[in-house]
């Protein structure tokens, strides 16, 4: 039981420390800003470890963080192979193709009111299809390897991106568009110099939503057929073998990859839309 009490004591101590830190000027600068969430994260891990040990929770229900860490360190090659298959070959190409296709479609819709009435409802329809129904079909069409996973990701990210880009292209103010007209600007000049820059805050919203969808799509699609590696394959087979520590290891990798992907997009967003009121500091 002592592990439990130690964990609770650490938790209370870290809580007090964070409350104190949050009131300090240090917590508003670069390193200090990262300190509070880091301490909080570490506290959660200690509490988790303490609870699992103190209460004797079965590893199948919830393995301790130390057990998960041990599993990660001994299965690096497997984890890397799964990561490369699911993220690098499935999620990222699917994400890029889906976002690119959404972009081209958005321009087409923008140019033609006919397409606007026709394509948006179809996009809406596709987005309403449940992924668990769609994934097996796409696996049948594109095979067991990464191509079918990328296809699932394309379908998942396409619509949120399309809606955001179409909305973004309408985000410029009338006066800004009138100015372009008075200068005799062509459609493409006006698109490149005004409407695309004005659309960027919307585009990045879409990209951030799409980044998490891409990860989910690539992993879940592997449940319906895959080679004998990949994060989704590993999760579904290890659950069957009660190897829950491996499942948690995969989840940890997925969480890290997802956060890194999201963080990268947020970083680019800060650089591209520095002018937007939400990004000015």
């Amino acid at each position, binding site marked *: 039981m002592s592990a439990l009490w130690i964990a609770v004591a650490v938790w209370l101590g870290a809580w007090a420390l964070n409350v104190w830190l949050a009131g300090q000027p240090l917590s508003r600068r670069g390193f200090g800003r990262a300190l509070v969430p880091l301490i909080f994260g570490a506290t959660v891990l200690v509490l988790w470890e303490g609870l699992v040990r103190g209460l004797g929770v079965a590893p199948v229900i919830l393995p301790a963080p130390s057990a998960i860490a041990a599993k990660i360190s001994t299965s690096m090659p497997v984890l890397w192979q799964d990561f490369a298959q699911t993220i690098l070959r499935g999620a990222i190409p699917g994400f890029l193709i889906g976002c690119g296709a959404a972009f081209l479609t958005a321009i087409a819709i923008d140019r033609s009111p006919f397409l606007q009435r026709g394509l948006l409802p179809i996009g809406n329809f596709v987005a309403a299809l449940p992924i668990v129904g769609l994934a097996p079909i796409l696996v049948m069409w594109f095979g067991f390897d990464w191509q079918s996973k990328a296809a699932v990701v394309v379908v998942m990210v396409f619509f949120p991106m399309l809606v955001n880009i179409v909305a973004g292209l309408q985000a410029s103010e009338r*006066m*800004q568009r*009138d100015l372009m007209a*008075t*200068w*005799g600007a062509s459609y493409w000049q006006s698109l490149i110099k*005004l409407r695309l820059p004005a659309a*960027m805050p919307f585009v990045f919203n879409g990209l951030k939503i799409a980044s998490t969808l891409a990860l989910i799509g690539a992993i879940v699609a592997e449940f319906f057929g895959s080679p004998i590696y990949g994060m989704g394959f590993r999760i579904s087979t290890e659950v069957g073998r009660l190897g829950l520590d491996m499942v948690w290891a995969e989840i940890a990798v997925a969480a890290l990859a997802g956060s890194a992907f999201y963080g990268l997009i947020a970083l680019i967003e800060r650089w591209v*839309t520095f*002018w937007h009121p939400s990004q000015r500091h």
Partner: protein
Amino acid sequence: MKDTKSLDQPVIEAKGLNLVFQTSDGPVQALKDVNLTIGKGDFVSFIGPSGCGKTTFLRCIAALEHPTSGTLTVNGMTPDEARQKRAYGYVFQAAGLYPWRTIAGNIRLPLEIMGFPKAEQEERTERVLELVELKGFGKKFPWQLSGGMQQRASIARALAFDADILLMDEPFGALDEIVRDRLNEEVLKLWARTGKTIGFVTHSIPEAVYLSTKIVVMSPRPGRITDVIDSPLPKERPLDIRDSREFIEIAHRVREGLRAGHQDD
């Protein structure tokens, strides 16, 4: 020969101009039988209450709205053709600067679109920044400047490509009186120096009288011209000309014109 002919030719000529907007409440007559001739180098103010069509008329000249009937020519062409020939600079009520571009970048934008060579873009940008007294602010972003400075930057942007006609739609409406007085003086200086034809929409009687060679008084429902006053004031106008008798007389006539327009309601 050709030159004398172009001098005689009016820069902007409207004959029997009508514009009807179709709204959800039915048709609205924004302009009714507007006839007006503006010569080269004129400074014309359009004054009247909201809904009198002054902005709409300016937008027609700029081909941002299209009249339902009547003829309108700019430099002897249709407004659309004149727009393609980049005949005018337009200054809106708000600065409308693009926030992702610096002040210099905003001023350079029309030059980029019109395909000026790079070196000339730089040179013109520098020159107009100096003209509106924003030298040294080129690298700032719009949101880092005050409202008055932003509006000056937008004037610089309209001047950069040296169009013969400058259309200004209540450019100083949102600014306080002191800033406004100074910018009015600057606009007059600019007009004297460049000899441009200027169309200027305003709510303010003193502003209209102080600036214009020709004051067009308009009234609403339907939008129409009720009086056109050719100002006898000299071209050289210090701020205290506003206390002179002539100035007060013209202001009085403008006020009468505005009141007459309202009595028809």
